[in-house]
């Protein structure tokens, strides 16, 4: 049970949150201009690193806000949380 610091609500149990996959995968500006392969990359391809990973979470049973977190997928340590639209913090 992770303890996740919601940027608005502070540290809360993981059970209050929903996972949203990789962060910073923006909806393309003009999907029509993309090749099938580029569109398929947006639709179906995501990173799966061992180590620090910027990912999206939603405080679904709390303030219902989406935010981003940098979590180490090997240790589950969360190194940073930040709001939507903010750049990924440098966590080394």
């Amino acid at each position: 049970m992770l303890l996740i610091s919601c940027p608005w609500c502070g540290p809360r149990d993981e059970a209050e949150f929903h996972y949203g996959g990789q962060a910073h995968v923006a909806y393309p500006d003009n999907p029509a201009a993309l090749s099938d392969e580029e569109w398929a990359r947006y639709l179906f391809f995501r990173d799966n690193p061992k180590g620090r990973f910027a990912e999206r979470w939603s405080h679904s049973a709390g303030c219902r806000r989406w935010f981003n977190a940098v979590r180490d997928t090997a240790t589950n340590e969360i190194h940073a949380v930040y709001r939507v639209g903010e750049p990924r913090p440098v966590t080394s």
Partner: protein
Amino acid sequence: MRRDSGGRIDRDTTLRFTFDGQEYTGHPGDTLASALLANGVRQVATSVKLGRPRGIVSAGGEEPSAVVQIEAPFPEPMLPATTVELYDGLVAAGLPGQGRLATEPDPARYDAVHAHCDVLVVGAGPAGLAAARAASGTGARVIVVDERSEPGGSLLGTRESVTEPGADDVLGPQEVGSGADWAAATAAVLEAMPEVRVLRRTTAIGYYDDNYVVAVERRTNHLGAAAPADVARERVWRIRAKRVVLATGAHERSIAFAGNDLPGVMLAGAARAYVNRYGVLPGRRAVVFTANDSAYAAALDLADAGVEIAAVVDVRPSPGAAWTAGARERGIQVLSGHVVTAAQGDGQVSSVLVGRHRPEAGAAVGEQELAADLLLVSGGWNPVVHLFSQSGGTLRYDDALGTIVPDASRQAVEAAGAAKGVFTLSGCLADGAAAGYRALEAVLGRAVGERPATPRATVETPTTPGQAFWLVPATDYRSHFVDLQRDVTAADVQRATGAGLRSVEHIKRYTTAGTAHDQGKTSGLLTTAVVAHALGTTVGELGSTTFRAPYAPVSFAALAGRDRGALHDPIRVTALHEWHVANGALFENVGQCKRPWYYPRAGEDMESAVLRECAAARESVAAMDASTLGKIDVIGPDAGEFLDRLYTNMMSSLAVGAVRYGVMCRPDGMVFDDGTVIRLAEEHFLVTTTTGNAATVLDWMEEWLQTEWPALRVHLTSVTEQWATVALVGPRSRELLAELAPDLAVGVADFPFMTWREAEVAGIPARVCRISFSGELAYEINVTSWDGLRLWTAIMDTGRVTPYGTETMHVLRAEKGYPIVGQDTDGTVTPQDLGMSWVVSKKKPDFVGKRSFARADTSRPDRKQLVGLLPEDPSYLLPEGAHLVADAELPAPPVPMLGHVTSSYRSAALGRTFALALVKGGQSRIGERLYAPVGGALVPVTVTSHVLYDPEGARRDG
């Protein structure tokens, strides 16, 4: 047999219990195991695969052998007899390795508590109590959990005593008394502190991320039939701790030799605990087989209690002088450099073969037979590192200790005392206190200035190093057991290595060693050692298998807690629910909602009720409670733009006062949800969703709004619960509405299809929408939930309206070919596949899903498309889910599957059965004959348009 005195039992009270049909007595303070031993019962169970007799091996939760079934007062399977506290009226039976679940419902209550603390101490033995004492008293919140009925840990089973440093220098050190007395006194001091909580009979079972520890407290199990019904039988503690001290102690391990599973073979420390804690002599004449000093203490305690010690067999060539001297004082012979080669006996130990250890010779030499009914074994001690490992901690093999010890953890945790490999009492007391202070200082963020001196053992016999000794060499290893519960022998392990297995993880799965209810607490490292022996490597090289939660078996009832039966999941009902119940509706669960399914009249079955309800809707007027449809207010200057991006069709062009059907797709172009959108005002839309998807759609909208389009000025609010909705359906619905809403102009021109009006209906302010999910003239009347029942009752009180439920709704919509998202779609279906190209805008530059309609995959001609099916036998009802094939005779497998039936009903309007199906290239197969393999037969069906009733839409305006 029971000693005349001693032990932490209440001899003035007698408890009656039954085991394997025999009646016995015991005392409060006994476990079932100690009471059985006191009554001379040696065989408690039989083994799971080989059916061998098995006795009591340990005195705690690590028990690998004596597994029992509790029969009364409430059946519970697979409990170690060593952890069952005796109570009056207990009925139990030994098990052949498998238990039996209760068939009647468990009447007990179970609950759960969330707790937060600064320092969590797991284990109330000497190290744990010292840690808790160090960490408490300065305001830090401390929780101590211990799995036993009383604090003290190992002290309960020994004769050691503890000396407290004096309160001042004048008095000097004071011996408090026995170790158990010290533990009780220390626990009492802790419990008196308001910020400290001591939980007995509480086992920490799992250590999770961010110092989250789950423990299970057994609150009334030990009371038997006397357990008060209003107290939870078990309670799950979910503890978030800033720091954790794991003072979980150590488990003694056995040695693999022939017949080491016979009843009468017991861990030395366990025998010592039976003598000291329970006042029980587990035998009359014992041989002690050891590779370390600790078994000498057991030998001396047993000898002093009256057990004849035939010999101490010590594999070490030169055991510690202090201990051997103690043995010789009592006339006990010490056979150093010797091993036990076999325990012998018929059903229990009657003699022990002992020989001189000659590892280079491959087997012991000079065997002699010693008569004995008890064989105590100590192969050394394994720190209980389970929770430390679960915390993400790494382990290392300590060559000097001959066991695995905690190394580093990324969490705020440390092990203390025996759990860390400290095996002396003074060492545990000092180590526990130091860990407690470190935890406190970490919590306080500052150093603790004054530290009172820590207690120490009153008498401490110097110890000498043990020898890591695992396997007595032999030519036949078929009765050298490593895992008693799984009947795994050293021969089985050697067969695994002989088959080429090298990893202990693989060998665990191949042999099943360590996979029983005890999870190999006493056998895990022994298995590794036997593997190492077979492979010619070392235990340190191989390491241990992974430790996983739960540490000890947990009942499902405890984990479920209060969340069972009606409390398992919220039950949502509509404002009209009481009317449905009073009028005999049967209900269908849709998500968490209870929806009326159909309303059978006397003598009607489901089929006849639904045919009647359908006929009423098609021929007269009928009404349905549609309140559960999801409703979302979409408000703001950019609401139209927002909906344009999410729906496949245009919503911003919707006029105030109008209604439009819409479909939402995922980016991959697959249908996600559908429903109506009505425009209430320039900047205010109301979106409806399918019942089961209401929360998901709101989440979906929020996700896009917050993460992709935060610049849009839109607010989303769920209003599902705020509105009650009644669908009024049928050719006579207009005249009924006109009567109920005399001020509303209901003519076709005044109130056209896909518009909405505000009006008073039955005197209640309402929003009336002219929409239809049946193809008939129909209205949806929305009022506030407070008024819902009043509206519904007014409609029903006309006496002309037939109530109908979801089954009729499904038939009516299916006759019209309207798909249900999630029933006729499955996440691989596009709007075009559903025959709804018209709902996909060509004008909008983009919307979620649009780009995917240009992918080659979404224009494949063999995509599965929604079609209708008419069984050639018009009375045959196809099962939903049935597959469809092309040929009247099945070809050899693999048979090409063309699709499957998604909906199937009897239609009153069509006078026959029909179905909807997703069929490959379905829209080009209309008129074709296909076959549904059902129950060995191939049922012929004709493919039709998915719109089977009123394809011209003539009935829409009544």
